[in-house]
Every structure is written in C-alpha cells, then in structure tokens.
C-alpha cells in the first residue's frame, strides 16, 4: 500500500523522524548525506495521473458518496434492485463531477503558485562565486545573498549584513500579515565575514539545531566555527515568507528548505468550524437513518405476512426462485425498500447547502455597504460555511484597540507650562465641536511636516514660532525621548516605525511643530529643530516597562549640556518631581483630569539637567548593573530610579484613541437585538471603562456598574456573588444547570437567569485570572451573563480565549469574536465565528478569521442583515427540502400496502432520478438565495427581528418533527386522493386509466405541483428569478415528461422509456386534472389557514414587522435616529500608554549595553492549553505585558 501510494505521488510518512538537524556551510556533499528536503515546495495535491484515482478515492471517503455507492451496490443485486441503476448513478456522477471540477481548478491554481515560487531566482554562493539559482535548487547548507525588498528564500541563519551591528530589518507580512518592521541581528563572528565572497566561501561553520517544526517564535541550535560553539536563537533566524527591508544586502545560511520551513510547516492546518445547524443535521441524519430502518422494517414485516398469506398462492403467476420463503423475501424486501426510500436521507442536501452558503457568502463579499472606501477594502467571507450562524449570535467578544477604536492616535491636546492647548474656541470663547470643516493649522512653513497631521488650535503654533522655551522643550522632549525608527526613503519624506501608535503620534506632533526627528544611530539622534539640523548624543535609554510606566533618555546636546528627558504616567512622574514644580503640577493635574474625562490618553512630560560628574558615576554603576548576572532587571530598575528624580515638569500630552465611525450606534443596535457584548482588552481598567462609556456599552442609565477588582480568590468570589444577588436577589447558590445527554455525550448548559434592569460589569485582569479558575468559572459566567455589558481589562490573549471558551462551553449560545491584532487570534479561533478587522496594520487576525471587513460598524450589517437573512434562508431551505423529500418518499411507503410490499415504486424511475436534480432543485435554491422577510432598512429598524435566530426558532428538532407530520399529511393526500379517484375508473372513452403508468404519472404530477405550491407559500420575496425558476421547473417537468413519453424516445431507447404515451393518454382527461387540483388544494389550504390563524392569534415579531412594512409602503421610513455623542461627566484617570519595552536596548546596544538583545515577551507565557500550542506565535508586541495570573 505504502509503495503504491508513494508511487502515486503521496508522501507517505517519513521513514525516520528527524531528531536533530546537522549541516555544514558550503558542503553540499556532507549535507546531502542527510537527505534533507531541498527548497522546492509542493502544495498541490495531484499530478496528471494521480488526479482521477486519488480524487475519487478521497471523495468516496465522504459519507454521502459512500452511501451512494452502497445504494448502487444494492441496486446491482438483481434480487434486491428495486430501481434501475441510473437513479443512483446520475446524481452520483453529477455530485462527483462538480467536486472533481472544483478540486481540479483548485489544484491547477496551486500548481501555478508552486511553479511561480519555485522558479524565483536568488543568488547562491556556489564554488566560491555567486550564481543566480532557482529557489527550488537551493540546498540546505547553501549560503545565499538577499537584497533589499527580496523575499527570504528559505529559513536562513543570518550570517552578515550591510547594516551596522549586523542588523537587518524584515517585514513579516506574508508570514503573519504584519507590516511593521522587525529586527534581526547576526552573530558577531559571522557578521565579520561581511560581503567578502572568499571568506564566505571558506566559511565552514557547522550548525546543529532542532528538527523542522512549526514554532515561529522559537529556534534553538548551535553554530560551531573553528572549534568555538555559539548558541543560536530566534533572533538569528530569517524565516521564509519574510521580506528584507531597509537593508542593502545580507547573507544567510540555509537551515531549513522547502517543506521543512516554518512557513510551510505552519500551513494547511486549520480548525474546521461547523455551525450549530450542522450539528443538528448530524443528529437528524442519524435519526433519519433510524427512521428509514423503521419504515423498511415495517414494510418487510408486511412483506413477510403478505408472502405467507398471499404470495405462496400467487405462485401460479409468479414462481419464485428455489428456496425462496417468506423470511428471505422479507430480508430482501428490506434492502429493496432501503433503495426506494433512500431519498429520506438528505444526501443531495449537503451539496445544496454548500451552494447556498457559497451564494450567501458572495452576497457578503459583494455588499457595497460593507465596503470601506478609504482603505478600498470590501467585506470578505473567508469561511463560506458559517453564514447562517451569523443569524444566531448571542455573545460578541470584542477587542478594543483597532476594533472599537481606530488604533489611530492623534495628538489632540497638550498642557505646556500650565497652559492648555488644542481646544478650539470661537470668538466668544465658546468651545467649538471639531468637525471636518474646522480650520486646520497650516504647517506649510515646515517642509518636513507630515501632511496627514491635523491640529486645530493656532495658539500652539504661534507659541512655537515665538520661541517660547517651555513649548520648545516640550516638543524637543517628544522628538528625543522615544524608540521610534525613522525611515527616509526619499529626501524629506519621513516614515516612522513606532513601537506603539501613541509614540508615533507624539513624535509626529513634534515633527509638525518644528522638531523633526530625522534619523538615529545607536549613539546619536538627529533632529531638525525649527529648521536647524541638530545632533544629540544619545547616552542612555531608560526604557519603558510596565512597572516603571515611564521612559527616559539621557542626551548631550551640541553645546555639551547633559539632559534627561522623561515621559510617563502622570502619577509616576508627579512622584518624582522637584518641589519647585508643585504649583505647575496642580494646574497640570486639572488639565489632565479634563483630558481624561474626554477619554484621551495622557502622559506627563518632565526633564532634568544632569551634572557631568554625577552622570559619569551613575553611568559606571549602570554598566555594572547591566552586566550583572543575577537579578539584573531589579538592579537596573533601582539604578534608573536613582537618576529619575527631582524632575522638572514640562507639561502633559493628550492623545485621542479615536473610536471608529459608528461604533456607539452599532453597539446600541446590537444591544437591541439582544446580543451581549463583552469587551476583552489588554488596556487598563480606566481606559477600558472610558471607551466603554464613549462607545455606548456602559450607559449612565444602567442601574449599576459592578467593578470587580480584588486581589484574592475569595474576594473575587464575594464580589461576583454580591453583584449577582444585587441583580437578582432570588437567584440561588446552585447554578441553574440543564443537563442533557445526547448520543452518549453529556452536556451541561447554564440557563439564563432573569434580571430586571440593565447592569454592567467591569473586571480586571487580576480578578479575571482568579475567576477563570475551575471552581469559580460558573460564578463568573452567571454574574457576567446577567449583565448587559461586560468589560474585561488587562486580559492576556490566552485569557481572551478562555473567556470565549467558557461561554461557548457552558452556554447554549453562539459566540462571535471580533478583533484586529495577533493578540485576538486565539479568541477568534476559539469562538464559533471569528471576525477580523482588515485594512489596519496587522493581518494576523484576518488570516485566522472567518469573516473580515474594515470597520467595526459593518458588524451590525453582517449580523442583522446578512446573518439574519442567511439563517432565515438556510432554515427555510432545510424545512422545505426535508418536506419535499419526505413527502416524495412517504408516498412509496403508503403504496407498499397496495403492492404486496414488493418495493414497487410509485413514480417513473426517471422522475425519481431527476426530481431532486432538476424539477425541484432550482426553485428551492432561488428561494434560499433571494428570500428576505423584510429588507435591510427594516432589519435595522427592528433589531428585535434577530431574536428568532438566537432562540433557534426556525429550525430545531421541534420544527423537524412538524415537518415530518406535515409530510406525512401531504403524502397521505398525495397517495390516497389519486388512489380513490383512480380506483375502478376509466377514461372518457372507456379505456384503461387505472393502469400503473397512468397512476405513476398522476401521482408524480400531483406531488410536483403540491410541493411547488408549498414553495410558493414559503417564499416571501418573489423576484423575477424565483418566478422564472418555479414556472421554469414546472414547464421543464411537463416538457421532459412529454419528451420521455414520446414515440421517438421509445423507438430509440426502447427499454429505458416504457412510459410511452402515458402523458398523452392521461393528461387529456378532466378527472386527472380535477384530481391534481384537489390534491394541491388539500395540501396547501390547511397550511394557509394555519399560518393565517397563527398570524392573528400569536403573531411573531416577524409577522408584525411584515405587517408594518405593508402598511408603511406609502409612508416613508422615519429618518435614522441620531446618536448624540456622549460627554462623560465623571472624571476618570486617562493615563494609558500602549507600549511595551521596545527598541530601547537595540538602539543603544552598540554602546554600553553589552547584553545580548533580549527576546521579546512571548504572547502566551503559559502554553499549557492546546490553543496556545497550536497558535503560531508572532512578533507583534502586545500592548501591555502579559500578566501572570
């Protein structure tokens, strides 16, 4: 088997698992002996010869197709075959060929991509000279040269680069979708090789490292050069898929090639999400199989009895094979009926469901109202199999930064030397709302200004121009004290690579106000100060971290003066101020409170002139601390603390974390649709709360907002219980759990508890960690689920996933997670539906999401319009599909009682073959692609329309049981009315009409018309397409029937079309048509009556709105309500600085910080859960350092 498969082109498992990789540079022979994969990749699955057999093999592994084959085999047994083979083969072939075509086109695309990638050129060092080589010919151990903006060929060990300190910059867009630059640094020993080809060719370092794996953030290995062994880590490794930026050239040693690269090792493994309807369907299919067996058993028992009573005597007319007896006959009949009644098992349903979901996904892709013009980003349904679930969302978990907010920080206000700037006032001194039209400050005097920067207060510019020393120092500080990397592609065109958008905003502000940060080296910072180029010597960077909440730089200006510039959280800075600043501090505090009240993020800025001697002394101690072997962090912190004191306050800056457009409205709409929104953010509690208010989640009219911020498990529990008791005093201690057991799987579902009034809950990261412990989880869930809005602050990515998992597991509800960054990936993957915000900086979230769009506000359209419609359509489709197939099949069941249980079909075999494929396929697809109860505007007008989806009202086990009964009724009508009408009757010329063929034609015509009318009753929205499909299908039915029953067809294919003449002979009889009319009316009118009465007696929300729409046809809709932007009255601290320690070490690493660059904090400090293990880790720094619980 193995050899056969490998001959067919499949890689059977490698014979030997690689334990360690060992390679030597420039020694192909040595490396080839290990048989490492070369750099060619193959993502395609088939080649010309293997395509057909392999693809078919795969397809037949699917249950549906296997079932078809099983039926086909049954049909080939003459004793059992109750239907001709073509009834199964035709649909099977159709399904197979559609899938085949799709797979073929997919694979061709993959082949093309493979070829394209494999044929890219790269310079490889072969035999002492650089040769251009195709990627696929690159071997492990080769040294390759990369130039700027080139893709990294394979996983490389960085040897040397054109940049100082052997640094290189890479962009990881293709790997994790992020566009900000990352830094890698080569070992000094290899870095010294430079671009000296001779030395590189002679380089014979040996690498021993881990075997190929998919961890993007980890690499362990050693490099042995000339007897010296150096350890290698991730900072020396360039991964395939990255792009070299801002680096002229670099050399790398290929460590992993092609399929062994981390990029390839990461691809192809995705979690398969299924919708709740899928799960329900699986249960139903099992039930249907049981039901099928039940029907067949009844019929085969009937057959046994019949054989016993009648069959033996009927022998005169139908002798049977020797040894036939009642029990054998019953056994064979069982299988014969399995063939005939197979249509109850909804095999073709799966194909249709895929088509529908695909169609509805296209509608999402096509929606112009979810298209963002600014970023030219349309919405995208990346997973096409989850649409209807969008109509059932109960919980939304949202990230804050970049999702609710734009992740665009704008320098908005500042307070300098006790004077507040940034507010626009009119002549009367009245505050003016800033709009698009407000006059902007003209920065044209500054040729280096960023044209995208807006500021509205002219006073500040004037102050700068007048040379006010405080204002100038303020901006000088902003231009110097940061870790931003500049990039100047062309003269005067500056781009900043900032660690955090806050910092970018501040540096940009300084730039526009005339203090342009131009370039930096490890030792210097070049600034253009009011047009004068100035270079500062950078002596130390006292980098930011979470505890310090501040950063400082120590610089020497051209005049030789030493200054320490510091920015940080107001509370921290204020503690370290010189007493002389006290007065200023008071004024500034007032300003800070004002800014915080507006939801701005504030920083306090201070400086201090240093004494040369003291600094030298400090520097030495600093050096000591920084080279200390143990407890270095703490020692450094203490050293920093020493010098950051007696600061002189300059002022404060306020940066606006801009909300995305329409966020408050969207949240209000979603809340009306009874969707609960939980914000999970890494931000501080205060910031999160601020945003919660400004985006309308937390409202002043809420009865109470509970804040859980405790330090021990017991306190957290107490606070949670207290909150719960307050909301619902009668709620008991025991959680209301509904246990159910289904198919051997035990499940627990926490029921909703009644609360009156709206509440909010804010819980901080520390408490959340306690609350997420096993014994407190349910307590948290109970309390949180009673609240309208929940905000979790300082949440780690892992906790985000845990919270989602908690709700997903214990609530019978559909969850949706929305986010934009790498820290949201785990939650996006965990939730039933993941939504990524695209068009922003990172793509990681989008890449792992199911749906993506550019703006948070599109979420309401996705859910309230597309989701609702998809759910409605899917449910209508399923209900109708089951109805039409059950009705179709049950008629056979009833006929069994009249044909000696002989598995005689009621209908013509051709009708059976194409009933699902042709006669009823298009109308139902039309219904489920175009139907809408009310249009999108009304959907927004009445978000309550969303509720039925959350409650699973349109398709459930109950609904299924109703369909079953309805089908039963219809099939009884459809069999017994023709039966009674045809019994003993004749044509108007006395000839036969009660013959089998006429009866078959009558029964199938009745059926088709009855189900078509039912479809009509189910259709709310009759487009021309629906009309065309319905009438077209009926016409096709008659056309096909008359054709198949024509003389010509019989003369050509005699035995295939024995129904010759039946249509002509019976469809000209009035009593045939009267029978058809009677069955149609009997099938449809009860439905109409029932629906009408229900609308009158128990109208659903849907009925009411539809009624309203009808009445409002003439009257235009009221204009969309305006949402006033709230001003928050309560003062809240607005300090927030989304920053982690950054390039600080790096930019100065050439100087005195001789310690190697530390690895960045990993995203998931505790990787015990599978979520963390399977999630590729990324370089994106999260905003707050992960807190350990």
């Amino acid at each position, binding site marked *: 088997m193995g050899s056969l498969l490998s001959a067919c082109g499949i890689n059977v498992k490698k014979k030997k698992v690689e334990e360690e990789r060992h390679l030597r540079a420039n020694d192909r022979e040595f490396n080839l002996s290990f048989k490492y994969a070369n750099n060619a990749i193959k993502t395609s699955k088939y080649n010309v010869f293997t395509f057909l057999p392999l693809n078919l093999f795969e397809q037949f592994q699917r249950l549906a197709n296997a079932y078809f084959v099983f039926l086909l085999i049954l049909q080939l047994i*003459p004793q059992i075959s109750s239907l001709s083979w073509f009834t199964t083969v035709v649909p099977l072939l159709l399904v197979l060929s559609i899938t085949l075509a799709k797979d073929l086109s997919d694979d061709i695309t993959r082949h093309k991509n493979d070829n394209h990638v494999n044929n890219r050129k790269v310079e490889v060092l072969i035999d002492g000279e650089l040769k251009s080589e195709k990627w696929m010919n690159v071997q492990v151990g080769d040294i390759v040269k990369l130039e700027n903006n080139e893709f990294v060929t394979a996983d490389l060990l960085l040897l040397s680069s054109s940049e100082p300190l052997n640094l290189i910059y890479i962009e990881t867009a293709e790997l994790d979708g992020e566009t900000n630059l990352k830094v890698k640094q080569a070992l000094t020993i290899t870095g010294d090789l430079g671009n000296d080809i001779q030395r590189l060719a002679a380089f014979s370092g040996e690498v021993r490292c881990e075997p190929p794996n998919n961890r993007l953030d980890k690499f362990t290995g050693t490099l042995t050069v000339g007897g010296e062994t150096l350890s290698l880590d991730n900072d020396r490794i360039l991964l395939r898929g990255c792009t070299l930026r801002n680096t002229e050239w670099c050399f790398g040693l290929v460590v992993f090639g092609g399929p062994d690269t981390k990029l390839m090792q990461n691809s192809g493994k995705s979690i398969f999400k299924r919708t709740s309807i899928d799960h329900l369907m699986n249960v139903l299919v099992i039930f249907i199989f049981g039901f099928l067996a039940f029907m067949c058993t009844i019929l085969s028992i009937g057959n046994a009895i019949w054989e016993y009573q*009648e069959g033996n*005597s*009927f022998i*005169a*007319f*139908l*002798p049977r094979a020797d040894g036939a007896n009642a029990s054998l006959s019953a056994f064979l009949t069982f299988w*014969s009926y399995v063939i005939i009644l197979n249509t109850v098992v909804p095999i073709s349903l799966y194909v249709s469901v895929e088509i529908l979901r695909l169609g509805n996904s296209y*509608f999402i*892709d*096509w*929606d*112009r109202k979810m298209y963002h013009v*600014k*970023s*030219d980003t349309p919405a995208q349904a990346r997973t096409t199999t989850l649409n209807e679930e969008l109509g059932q969302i109960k919980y939304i978990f949202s990230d804050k930064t970049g999702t609710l907010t734009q992740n665009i920080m704008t320098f908005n206000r500042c307070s300098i030397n006790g004077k507040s700037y940034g507010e626009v006032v009119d002549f009367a001194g009245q505050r003016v709302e800033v709009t698009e039209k407000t006059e902007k400050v003209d920065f044209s005097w500054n040729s280096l200004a960023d044209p995208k920067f807006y500021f509205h207060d002219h006073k500040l510019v004037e102050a700068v121009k007048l040379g006010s020393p405080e204002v100038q120092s303020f901006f000088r500080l902003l231009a110097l004290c940061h870790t931003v990397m500049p990039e100047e592609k062309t003269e005067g065109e500056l781009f900043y690579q900032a660690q955090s958008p806050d910092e970018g905003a501040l540096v940009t502000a300084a730039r526009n106000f005339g203090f342009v940060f131009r370039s930096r080296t490890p030792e210097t910072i070049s600034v253009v100060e009011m047009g004068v180029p100035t270079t500062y010597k950078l002596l130390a960077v006292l980098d930011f971290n979470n505890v310090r909440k501040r950063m400082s730089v120590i610089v020497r200006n051209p005049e030789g003066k030493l200054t320490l510039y510091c920015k940080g959280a107001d509370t921290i800075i204020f503690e370290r101020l010189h007493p002389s600043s006290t007065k200023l501090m008071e004024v500034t505090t007032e300003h800070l409170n004002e800014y915080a009240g507006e939801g701005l993020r504030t920083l306090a800025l201070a400086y201090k002139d240093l004494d040369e001697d003291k600094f030298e002394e400090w520097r030495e101690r600093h050096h000591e601390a920084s080279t200390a072997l143990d407890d270095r962090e703490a020692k450094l912190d203490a050293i920093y603390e020493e010098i950051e004191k007696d600061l002189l306050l300059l002022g404060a800056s306020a940066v606006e974390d801009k909300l995305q457009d329409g966020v408050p409205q969207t949240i209000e709409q979603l809340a009306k649709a009874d969707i609960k929104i939980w914000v999970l953010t890494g931000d501080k509690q205060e910031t999160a709360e601020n945003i919660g208010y400004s985006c309308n989640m937390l409202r002043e009219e809420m009865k109470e907002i509970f804040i859980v911020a405790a330090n021990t498990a017991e306190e957290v529990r107490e606070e949670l219980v207290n909150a719960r008791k307050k909301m619902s005093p009668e709620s008991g201690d025991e959680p209301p759990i509904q246990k159910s057991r289904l198919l051997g799987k035990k499940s627990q579902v926490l029921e909703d508890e009644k609360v009156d009034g709206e509440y909010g809950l804010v819980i901080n990261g520390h408490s959340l960690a306690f609350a997420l412990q096993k014994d407190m989880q349910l307590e948290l869930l109970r309390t949180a689920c009673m609240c309208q809005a929940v905000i979790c602050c300082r949440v780690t990515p892992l906790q985000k996933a845990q919270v989602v998992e908690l709700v997903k597991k214990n609530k019978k509800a559909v969850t949706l997670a929305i986010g934009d960054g790498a820290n949201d990936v785990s939650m996006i993957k965990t939730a039933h539906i993941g939504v990524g915000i695209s068009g922003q900086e990172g793509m990681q979230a989008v890449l792992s999401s199911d749906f993506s769009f550019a703006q948070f506000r599109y979420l309401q359209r996705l859910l309230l319009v597309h989701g609702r419609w998809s759910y409605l359509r899917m449910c209508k489709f399923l209900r109708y599909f089951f109805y039409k197939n059950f009705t179709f099949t049950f008629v056979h069941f009833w006929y069994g009682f*009249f*044909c000696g249980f*002989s598995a*005689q079909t009621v209908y013509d075999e051709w009708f059976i073959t194409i009933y699902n494929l042709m006669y009823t396929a298009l109308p139902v697809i039309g219904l489920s692609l175009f139907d809408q109860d009310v*249009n999108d505007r009304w959907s927004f007008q009445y978000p309550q329309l969303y509720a039925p989806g959350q409650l699973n009202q349109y398709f459930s086990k109950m609904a299924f049981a109703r369909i079953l009964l309805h089908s039963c009724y219809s099939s009884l009508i459809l069999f017994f009315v023709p*039966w009674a*009408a045809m019994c*003993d*009757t*004749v*044509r*108007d*010329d*006395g*000839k036969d009409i*009660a*013959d*089998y063929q006429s*009866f078959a034609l009558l029964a199938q015509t009745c059926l088709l018309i009855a189900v078509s009318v039912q479809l009509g009753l189910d259709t*709310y*929205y*009759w*487009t021309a397409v*629906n009309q065309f499909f319905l009438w077209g299908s009926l016409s096709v039915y008659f056309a096909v029937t008359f054709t198949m029953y024509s*003389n010509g067809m*019989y003369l050509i294919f*005699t035995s295939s079309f024995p129904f*010759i*003449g039946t249509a002509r*002979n019976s469809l000209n009889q*009035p*009593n045939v048509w*009267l*029978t058809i009319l*009677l069955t149609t009316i009997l099938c449809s*009118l009860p439905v*109409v009556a029932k*629906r*009408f009465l229900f609308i*009158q007696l128990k109208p659903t929300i849907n009925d009411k709105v539809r*009624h309203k*729409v*009808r009445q409002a046809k003439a009257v235009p809709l009221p204009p969309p309500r305006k949402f006033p932007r709230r001003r928050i009255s309560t003062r809240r601290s607005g300090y927030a600085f989304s920053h982690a320690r950054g390039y600080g070490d790096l930019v100065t690493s050439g100087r005195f910080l001789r310690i190697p660059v530390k690895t960045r904090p990993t995203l998931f400090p505790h990787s015990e859960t599978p979520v963390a293990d399977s999630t590729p880790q990324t370089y994106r720094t999260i905003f707050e350092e992960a807190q350990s619980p």
Partner: protein
Amino acid sequence: MKNEGETTEQPDNTAFTQQRLPAWQPILSAGIVIPGFLLIGLAFIGIGVGLFLTSQTITVLEMDYTGVEKDKPCFGCTIPNIQNCTCEVQFSLSTLFKGPVFFYYGLSNYFQNFRKYGVSKDYYQLTGDTQYFTNPQDSCSPFAYDSKKNPIVPCGAIANSMFNDTFELYQLINGTKKQVPLDGKGISWWTDYNIKYRNPSPVNGSFANAFSGTRNPINWPKPVYELDLTDQNNNGFLNQDFLVWMRRAALPDFRKLYRRITQGDYAEGLPAGNYSLTVHYNYPVLTFDGRKKVVFSNVSWMGGKNDFLGIAYLVVGSLCVVMSVVMLIVYAKFKFSDDDDV
C-alpha cells in the same frame, strides 16, 4: 500602498449583488385569505355538485362470477384441474342500460403491481425484434425459457398470466338467446397498438414462421401468433386483449376493458330484459383468494363512475367555506392591533 481614492475592490452596484432585486412580497392578509377561501370553497362546491351529478348518471352493473359460494353458477368450475368449463350468469335489466356500454372484466386481490411481476417482460421482444425471440432478456426469468430451454415468446410473467376467460353475452328474448355483438376493436391505447407493440415481419410469407424456434407461454394453450386467426390485425402482439392485459394495473383491484357493445340493436345500449352471460371459465384465482367479476358500465365526460371526486370536492368546498367564516371571526376578534409596539 494603496492610493487614496482608488476603489478597485469596490463591489458592483447592481440590484443583484446588493440584493435589491425588485420583488413581489405577498403576505397572508385577511383581505386575500378570507375571500380566497370563500371563493375556492364555492368553486369547489360547484365542481363537486357537477361531478357528483355526472357520476350519478353513470350506470354500473357489477357481477362477481368467481363462484366461491356453492349456490353460484360458476361454483362448478372452481374445482381444480377442470378443463373447458363453462358457466352461465343470468341477470336482468329493468331499464335501458344506456349505451355505449363497456364490458369489463375485473380481478380483485390480484397484484399486477407486484414489482417482480411488473418487470417480467421483454420490451424488445414485444417490439417484434426477433433477435430477442431466441434470447429473451433476463427480466423475464423464470418465464424466459421452458424446461427444455426453448425460449418463450412473449416471455415473462405478465404475458404468461394473461387473463383467458372469455365471455358471450346473450339477451334472453322469449326463451331464445340472442347474442349481443361484442366489439373488441380499439379497446387498447392507441400508442400501445401503434407504437409500443409491433409484430415481427412475416418470414417467407408466413407470420407463424417468424416465431419459429420459440414456444408459447407455459400457461397459454396456443401460441401468440394464433391469438386471433380471423383478423391478422388483431393477432400476435397486437391482439387487443393481450395489449389490455399487458398494461398492468396500479392497484390490486382492477378492471380491464373486455369489449364494447356498440353494434346492431345494442348501439343505444342494452334494452331492459333478461340476459345471460356465458363464461368460459379458465382463469384460476381462488388459490390466492382472488375474485373475478364482469362489469357493464357506460361513461361520461369524467370517465367511469367514481363518486369519490364529487364527494371530495363537496366536502373540501364546504370546509373551505366554514374555514373562511372561522377565520373571519378570528380576524375580527383577535387581529393584532396595528399600533402594537413591535
């Protein structure tokens, strides 16, 4: 970097992609449903009355001649293995049986719709394809070959079990029997006679030669080419009785057209009087508890007598009217008020 203002990815603005296709959106409003039910109800009652009255005008005379009970005239013929048994069934008509009268034979508890029975024939043979005369299709099994491996034509269970009772109808006028002429022409479907079934072309001028090497079905006393020696157009596969039999019935109780009474004195129908039906009793049905009957019937525009349709239309029509009243009451009493806050 994307240029601002460039909108290459913007979806098309068509009614289809934006799901704004113009559409008719009917709802089940009282204004449509209640009058609709009433109208349908009235129409159905009208049709029902018509159908019912028409059905009443059709006369049907049905006589079971199986001879289960001892006192029945054909009881004597039910003894197994009896040959050439004849019995007479007497009946009288008090009024004219309006013509044209159709003469049916009927079988009960006879499963012509049994699947294996139904497939047991060879369409190619029956289109006169002599290739299949010597090699009947497997579907005919076990009636494809006899025990001596001679192919059977026409093969299969349906042909083999062809109904072979024959009838003669006499009017008894003053003690003498006057034979009523029975017309056996054109009792099968036109398509069966002209398209579906074909005789083989005669070989050497002889029709019988075309069947050489084959044998008649086991239950048949004579070969298929001798079914009607008087009329070649009614012989072979084109024999009307054969065609009628081969069109198998949908239900286990069925009747098949045997003859029409359209000629001579009986063109207007069967006059009142006494009649005698001579039955050549050949067809055994008692083994499987079957029944045989003869039926005389005339027809109307709606075909043969069938009270069901008329009654069903009346009942459904009345229900619709009642329903419309109920719905009216419900609507008047319970209709949800429009200013209900949704």
